[in-house]
């Protein structure tokens, strides 16, 4: 049995945001962190390991510096890491990304009692699409928005968040779960973990590693193969050029509500 966890290194969007000419983000120019929801997915996998002794494999698609993040996850307790990295994969949208990650997961191998964990969404794109799309490409059942996961034998009972409550769902392995950060509190790297992390296996899957998979087709991956493209990207007008409204009476308030209504803000 093993748990495979998809993790993304994301730009720290609280810092400076740099954009390239083609409208995609210039990740190299920004500070990076491990995506929060993905850390919850890692912790969920590690808890499964604590309970069952299963193997935990972390996989990330990104440029070579993502190796640093993978080493940290090995130091937290993951057993193996895979970095999916190739020029051909660059500029992929969620669809293309899910094809590549699904091919990588197939290469790692999904067996009958395995679970694939993903974060619900990444803070740079906020799409929540890659998890379900990987599940589709792997023909696995999915449960998204997991806020609690319990495993008994080959069955997982998952609390799936709704806006106004939750659903309790039961799913058999193999399956894919996307985790919200409320699921748990990720552990820290341990001191022995930090010593061990450089001796644990970290494999790189490049284009050649994956190219024989039916999902890897230059017409359906990378910037060119992605179904969606950026038509235009633009900056919103600078904040701070706010509008001070005259007075503080009913007329002022009505004026404000009128503006908000006109802009469909309320």
């Amino acid at each position, binding site marked *: 049995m093993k748990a495979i966890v998809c993790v993304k290194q994301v730009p720290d969007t609280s810092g400076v945001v740099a954009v390239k000419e083609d409208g995609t983000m210039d990740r190299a120019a920004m500070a990076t962190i491990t995506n929060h929801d993905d850390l919850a997915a890692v912790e969920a996998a590690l808890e499964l390991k604590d309970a069952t002794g299963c193997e935990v494999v972390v996989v990330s698609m990104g440029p070579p510096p993502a190796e640093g993040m993978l080493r940290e996850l090995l130091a937290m307790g993951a057993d193996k890491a895979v970095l999916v990295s190739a020029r051909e994969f660059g500029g992929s949208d969620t669809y293309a990304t899910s094809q590549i990650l699904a091919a990588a997961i197939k290469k790692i191998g999904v067996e009958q009692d395995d679970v694939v964990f993903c974060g619900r969404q990444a803070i740079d794109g906020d799409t929540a*699409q890659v998890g379900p799309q990987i599940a*589709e490409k792997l023909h696995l059942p999915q449960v998204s928005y997991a806020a609690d996961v319990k495993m008994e034998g080959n069955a997982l009972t998952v609390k799936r968040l709704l806006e106004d409550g939750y659903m309790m769902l039961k799913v058999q392995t193999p399956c894919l779960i996307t985790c919200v950060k409320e699921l748990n509190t990720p552990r820290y790297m341990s001191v022995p973990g930090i010593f061990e992390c450089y001796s644990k296996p970290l494999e790189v899957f490049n284009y050649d590693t994956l190219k024989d998979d039916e999902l890897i087709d230059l017409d359906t991956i990378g910037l060119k193969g992605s179904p969606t493209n950026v038509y235009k*990207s633009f900056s919103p007008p600078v904040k701070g050029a*706010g509008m*001070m*409204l005259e007075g503080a009476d009913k007329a002022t308030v009505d004026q*404000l509500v009128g503006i908000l209504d006109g802009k*469909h803000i309320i």
Partner: protein
Amino acid sequence: MAEFNSKDTGAFKGVWVFCEQREGVIMSISYQLLSEGRKLANDLGVELCGVVLGSGVKEEYIKALGGYGADKVYYCDHELLKDYTTDGYTKVICDLVEDKKPEIFLIGATNIGRDLGPRCAARLHTGLTADCTHLDVDVEKYKSFLKTTSTIDVDNTAFEVNTNLKMTRPAFGGHLMATIICPRFRPQMSTVRPGVMATQAYDEAGAAKTVVENVPVSLSKDDIHVEILEIKKAAKKMVDLIGADVVVSVGRGISKDPEKGIALAQDLANALGGVVGSSRACVDAGWISADHQVGQTGKTVHPRIYVALGISGAIQHKAGMQDSECIIAVNKNGDAPIFEVASYGIVGDLFKVAPMLTEAIKALKASK
């Protein structure tokens, strides 16, 4: 490359809206999407169709979708569609899309829509753009949209003229906006968050004219691999600052009557469909619990609307909220730093301004 039906873009026609129901009741996001879809369908000169999956959904609810712009509703009735399952809904929707071939398919970005949309897009081999805040097919309309919302010199910029769906969404915490297209595949799919698009006035005559087509559903228990054990509605919501669409925060300005100040903020939050936050000062003073705190040592939020009542706007507070889409500040001191990041500012006493604002918003909502 592999052959996909979605590549034959010319074969796809019409605008569809997924009309989500829970417990047999249509979610209001469906009306917002139909209202928006109506404009797109008009610009393209095509039909607008609603798609409802459920079991025993009342006919009047289905017909009512015409009152928000739908020409036609495809209703898929099956006992296995009563409650949402990824497998069941994806299969039925993908079968229908393959059969009828819509060019545009809009889905509400609810916790269910954001599970369903990507699964369908992956199966249909097409693009999906999440959480769109603006949609256009007409380039001229798109250009006039950019004139008011961007720093682009629209008149001196070249635009490729086509009727592809132009899906605009915020990226990177609103630092940047991106307009996405899906030129090579159909349907062009997009999700939209609840509350982003306006609902048109209900049209009785439109509802009466709605054509309802009952779609035969091919679905069996074996198609569904996730079992629903229980669905629970939350009795009382916890304060979810981060997930909140609207946050109304209070600051030191409530000091003369903290209890009343918080109650006024709660009233305003209720009117806007939001939650109450606070600055650190109020937490330290013991007026409100720490889970409400916004700022560097509290939570970082970027809701659609952030209202700051009596908050001076220390840098630690601003760090936690300045990326909100629309910031409304009310403060007695016109020099308060909060006004530097505010979209709209009112210099005045929150105890007077907040209740007036609540009333004005309630009146507006009642008139809609």
